Protein backbone atom coordinates (compact mmCIF):
# COMPACT_ATOMS: atom_id res chain seq x y z
CA UNK A 1 0.00 0.00 0.00
CA UNK A 2 1.94 3.08 1.15
CA UNK A 3 5.71 3.09 1.31
CA UNK A 4 7.54 3.02 4.61
CA UNK A 5 8.33 6.41 6.06
CA UNK A 6 11.49 8.09 4.83
CA UNK A 7 14.56 8.16 7.04
CA UNK A 8 14.67 11.10 9.45
CA UNK A 9 17.12 13.97 9.17
CA UNK A 10 18.68 13.24 12.56
CA UNK A 11 18.40 9.56 13.36
CA UNK A 12 18.49 8.04 16.74
CA UNK A 13 17.26 9.78 19.81
CA UNK A 14 13.70 8.56 20.05
CA UNK A 15 11.89 5.51 18.89
CA UNK A 16 9.75 5.74 15.83
CA UNK A 17 6.02 5.24 15.96
CA UNK A 18 3.23 5.06 13.52
CA UNK A 19 -0.28 6.00 14.56
CA UNK A 20 -3.25 5.22 12.37
CA UNK A 21 -6.44 7.04 13.18
CA UNK A 22 -9.86 6.52 11.72
CA UNK A 23 -12.26 9.44 11.67
CA UNK A 24 -16.00 9.08 11.30
CA UNK A 25 -17.10 9.39 7.65
CA UNK A 26 -19.14 12.50 8.30
CA UNK A 27 -16.15 14.52 9.49
CA UNK A 28 -15.44 17.36 7.08
CA UNK A 29 -12.09 18.13 5.55
CA UNK A 30 -11.68 21.21 7.74
CA UNK A 31 -12.51 19.36 10.92
CA UNK A 32 -10.09 16.61 10.05
CA UNK A 33 -7.33 19.10 9.28
CA UNK A 34 -7.90 20.63 12.68
CA UNK A 35 -7.79 17.31 14.48
CA UNK A 36 -4.65 16.18 12.69
CA UNK A 37 -2.92 19.52 13.20
CA UNK A 38 -3.66 19.31 16.92
CA UNK A 39 -2.12 15.86 17.12
CA UNK A 40 0.89 16.95 15.10
CA UNK A 41 1.36 19.76 17.54
CA UNK A 42 1.48 17.28 20.41
CA UNK A 43 4.42 15.58 18.74
CA UNK A 44 6.29 18.85 18.30
CA UNK A 45 5.53 20.08 21.82
CA UNK A 46 6.65 16.82 23.36
CA UNK A 47 10.10 17.07 21.82
CA UNK A 48 9.43 14.67 18.98
CA UNK A 49 9.74 15.00 15.23
CA UNK A 50 6.94 14.45 12.82
CA UNK A 51 8.17 12.48 9.83
CA UNK A 52 5.14 12.31 7.64
CA UNK A 53 1.38 12.30 7.63
CA UNK A 54 -0.43 10.17 5.10
CA UNK A 55 -4.08 10.43 4.24
CA UNK A 56 -5.73 7.44 2.74
CA UNK A 57 -9.09 9.14 2.53
CA UNK A 58 -12.40 7.44 3.03
CA UNK A 59 -12.54 3.69 2.78
CA UNK A 60 -14.92 0.92 3.71
CA UNK A 61 -14.32 -0.63 7.11
CA UNK A 62 -14.07 -4.39 7.38
CA UNK A 63 -16.71 -4.29 10.10
CA UNK A 64 -18.99 -1.75 11.68
CA UNK A 65 -17.26 0.58 14.14
CA UNK A 66 -19.48 2.71 16.33
CA UNK A 67 -22.25 2.23 13.80
CA UNK A 68 -20.14 3.54 10.93
CA UNK A 69 -19.58 1.54 7.78
CA UNK A 70 -16.86 3.82 6.41
CA UNK A 71 -13.96 5.67 7.94
CA UNK A 72 -11.38 8.26 6.98
CA UNK A 73 -7.88 6.89 7.51
CA UNK A 74 -4.95 9.09 8.48
CA UNK A 75 -1.46 7.82 9.26
CA UNK A 76 1.12 9.71 11.26
CA UNK A 77 4.77 8.73 11.37
CA UNK A 78 6.86 10.35 14.07
CA UNK A 79 9.80 9.98 16.40
CA UNK A 80 9.05 10.92 19.95
CA UNK A 81 9.45 9.99 23.60
CA UNK A 82 6.89 7.54 24.91
CA UNK A 83 5.09 10.29 26.83
CA UNK A 84 4.05 11.78 23.51
CA UNK A 85 2.48 8.53 22.44
CA UNK A 86 0.53 8.40 25.66
CA UNK A 87 -0.66 11.96 25.21
CA UNK A 88 -1.68 11.42 21.60
CA UNK A 89 -3.65 8.32 22.47
CA UNK A 90 -5.31 10.11 25.35
CA UNK A 91 -6.46 12.88 23.03
CA UNK A 92 -7.67 10.45 20.42
CA UNK A 93 -9.79 8.70 23.02
CA UNK A 94 -11.37 11.98 24.05
CA UNK A 95 -12.08 13.08 20.48
CA UNK A 96 -15.50 11.69 19.56
CA UNK A 97 -15.04 12.19 15.86
CA UNK A 98 -12.23 9.64 15.81
CA UNK A 99 -13.65 6.16 15.97
CA UNK A 100 -10.56 3.96 16.08
CA UNK A 101 -6.79 4.18 16.30
CA UNK A 102 -3.68 2.02 16.42
CA UNK A 103 -0.16 2.95 17.41
CA UNK A 104 2.66 0.69 16.32
CA UNK A 105 6.36 0.83 17.01
CA UNK A 106 8.14 1.06 13.67
CA UNK A 107 10.89 -1.50 13.91
CA UNK A 108 11.02 -2.76 10.37
CA UNK A 109 14.33 -1.02 9.79
CA UNK A 110 15.93 -3.08 12.53
CA UNK A 111 14.45 -6.22 11.05
CA UNK A 112 15.76 -5.37 7.61
CA UNK A 113 19.19 -4.62 9.07
CA UNK A 114 19.18 -7.90 10.97
CA UNK A 115 18.18 -9.82 7.87
CA UNK A 116 20.96 -8.13 5.94
CA UNK A 117 23.52 -8.95 8.64
CA UNK A 118 22.42 -12.57 8.73
CA UNK A 119 22.75 -12.79 4.98
CA UNK A 120 26.22 -11.24 5.10
CA UNK A 121 27.28 -13.71 7.78
CA UNK A 122 26.00 -16.59 5.71
CA UNK A 123 28.07 -15.44 2.77
CA UNK A 124 31.18 -15.11 4.95
CA UNK A 125 30.75 -18.63 6.26
CA UNK A 126 29.67 -20.15 2.99
CA UNK A 127 31.69 -22.93 1.48
CA UNK A 128 33.81 -21.81 -1.45
CA UNK A 129 32.07 -21.76 -4.77
CA UNK A 130 28.73 -20.37 -3.60
CA UNK A 131 29.03 -16.64 -3.13
CA UNK A 132 25.38 -16.10 -2.34
CA UNK A 133 25.58 -18.41 0.66
CA UNK A 134 22.79 -20.59 -0.62
CA UNK A 135 22.43 -24.33 -0.34
CA UNK A 136 25.09 -26.09 -2.37
CA UNK A 137 23.83 -28.23 -5.17
CA UNK A 138 22.79 -31.70 -4.22
CA UNK A 139 22.21 -30.82 -0.58
CA UNK A 140 18.65 -29.63 -0.79
CA UNK A 141 15.44 -31.25 0.13
CA UNK A 142 15.08 -33.98 -2.44
CA UNK A 143 12.21 -32.38 -4.23
CA UNK A 144 12.81 -30.97 -7.61
CA UNK A 145 10.72 -27.93 -8.31
CA UNK A 146 12.10 -27.52 -11.78
CA UNK A 147 11.07 -30.96 -12.88
CA UNK A 148 7.37 -30.18 -13.21
CA UNK A 149 6.57 -26.92 -14.99
CA UNK A 150 4.31 -24.63 -13.03
CA UNK A 151 4.75 -26.57 -9.85
CA UNK A 152 5.69 -23.57 -7.79
CA UNK A 153 3.51 -20.55 -7.27
Amino acid at each position, binding site marked *: *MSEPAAAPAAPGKHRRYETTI*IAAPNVTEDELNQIVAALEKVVADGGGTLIRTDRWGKRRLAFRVRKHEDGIYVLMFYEAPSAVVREIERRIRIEDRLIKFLTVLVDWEEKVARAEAARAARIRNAPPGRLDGGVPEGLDSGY*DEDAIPGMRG
Partner: protein
Amino acid sequence: MRAPKKPGTRGPKKFLFRRRKFCKFCDEKIAFIDYKDIKLLQGFVPERGKILPRRISGTCAMHQRELQQAIKRARNIALIPFTTD
Protein backbone atom coordinates in the same frame (compact mmCIF):
# COMPACT_ATOMS: atom_id res chain seq x y z
CA MET B 1 20.20 -25.34 -12.14
CA ARG B 2 19.40 -28.62 -10.45
CA ALA B 3 20.03 -31.72 -12.50
CA PRO B 4 16.84 -33.45 -13.65
CA LYS B 5 16.00 -36.22 -11.25
CA LYS B 6 14.85 -39.70 -12.13
CA PRO B 7 11.52 -40.46 -10.48
CA GLY B 8 11.71 -42.70 -7.49
CA THR B 9 15.40 -42.23 -6.79
CA ARG B 10 15.11 -40.07 -3.72
CA GLY B 11 12.62 -38.25 -1.54
CA PRO B 12 9.05 -38.98 -0.49
CA LYS B 13 7.53 -38.48 -3.89
CA LYS B 14 4.48 -40.64 -3.39
CA PHE B 15 2.03 -38.01 -4.59
CA LEU B 16 3.35 -37.25 -7.96
CA PHE B 17 1.61 -33.98 -8.56
CA ARG B 18 1.40 -32.66 -5.05
CA ARG B 19 2.69 -29.14 -5.17
CA ARG B 20 5.61 -28.45 -2.95
CA LYS B 21 4.89 -25.92 -0.23
CA PHE B 22 7.24 -23.03 0.33
CA CYS B 23 7.33 -19.91 2.42
CA LYS B 24 6.22 -16.98 0.30
CA PHE B 25 8.09 -14.52 2.48
CA CYS B 26 11.40 -16.35 2.33
CA ASP B 27 10.96 -16.90 -1.36
CA GLU B 28 10.28 -13.27 -2.16
CA LYS B 29 12.68 -12.02 0.51
CA ILE B 30 10.05 -9.89 2.18
CA ALA B 31 11.95 -8.58 5.20
CA PHE B 32 8.99 -7.06 6.93
CA ILE B 33 5.30 -7.86 6.85
CA ASP B 34 3.34 -4.65 7.00
CA TYR B 35 -0.14 -4.68 8.49
CA LYS B 36 -1.16 -2.07 5.94
CA ASP B 37 -0.40 -4.34 3.04
CA ILE B 38 -3.90 -5.73 2.80
CA LYS B 39 -3.44 -7.35 -0.58
CA LEU B 40 -0.62 -9.44 0.83
CA LEU B 41 -2.42 -10.31 4.04
CA GLN B 42 -5.66 -11.24 2.35
CA GLY B 43 -3.93 -14.16 0.73
CA PHE B 44 -3.51 -15.62 4.20
CA VAL B 45 -7.00 -14.90 5.44
CA PRO B 46 -9.58 -17.17 3.83
CA GLU B 47 -13.22 -16.15 3.48
CA ARG B 48 -14.13 -17.04 6.99
CA GLY B 49 -11.57 -14.52 8.27
CA LYS B 50 -9.38 -16.96 10.13
CA ILE B 51 -5.61 -16.95 9.78
CA LEU B 52 -4.45 -19.61 7.36
CA PRO B 53 -2.46 -22.25 9.26
CA ARG B 54 1.13 -22.90 8.46
CA ARG B 55 0.48 -26.48 7.47
CA ILE B 56 -1.61 -25.24 4.60
CA SER B 57 0.20 -22.10 3.51
CA GLY B 58 3.70 -23.50 3.97
CA THR B 59 4.90 -20.29 5.63
CA CYS B 60 7.95 -20.79 7.83
CA ALA B 61 7.66 -20.40 11.59
CA MET B 62 9.37 -17.04 11.79
CA HIS B 63 7.28 -15.50 9.06
CA GLN B 64 4.06 -17.03 10.35
CA ARG B 65 4.65 -15.22 13.65
CA GLU B 66 5.16 -11.93 11.87
CA LEU B 67 2.21 -12.59 9.63
CA GLN B 68 0.04 -13.32 12.63
CA GLN B 69 1.06 -10.05 14.22
CA ALA B 70 0.36 -8.14 11.02
CA ILE B 71 -3.06 -9.72 10.53
CA LYS B 72 -4.05 -8.94 14.10
CA ARG B 73 -2.99 -5.34 13.69
CA ALA B 74 -4.89 -5.07 10.43
CA ARG B 75 -7.98 -6.42 12.14
CA ASN B 76 -7.66 -3.90 14.91
CA ILE B 77 -7.99 -0.99 12.52
CA ALA B 78 -10.76 -2.58 10.49
CA LEU B 79 -8.73 -3.34 7.39
CA ILE B 80 -9.46 -7.04 7.65
CA PRO B 81 -12.49 -8.68 9.25
CA PHE B 82 -12.26 -10.66 12.46
CA THR B 83 -14.88 -12.98 11.10
CA THR B 84 -17.56 -13.07 8.46
CA ASP B 85 -20.94 -14.66 8.82
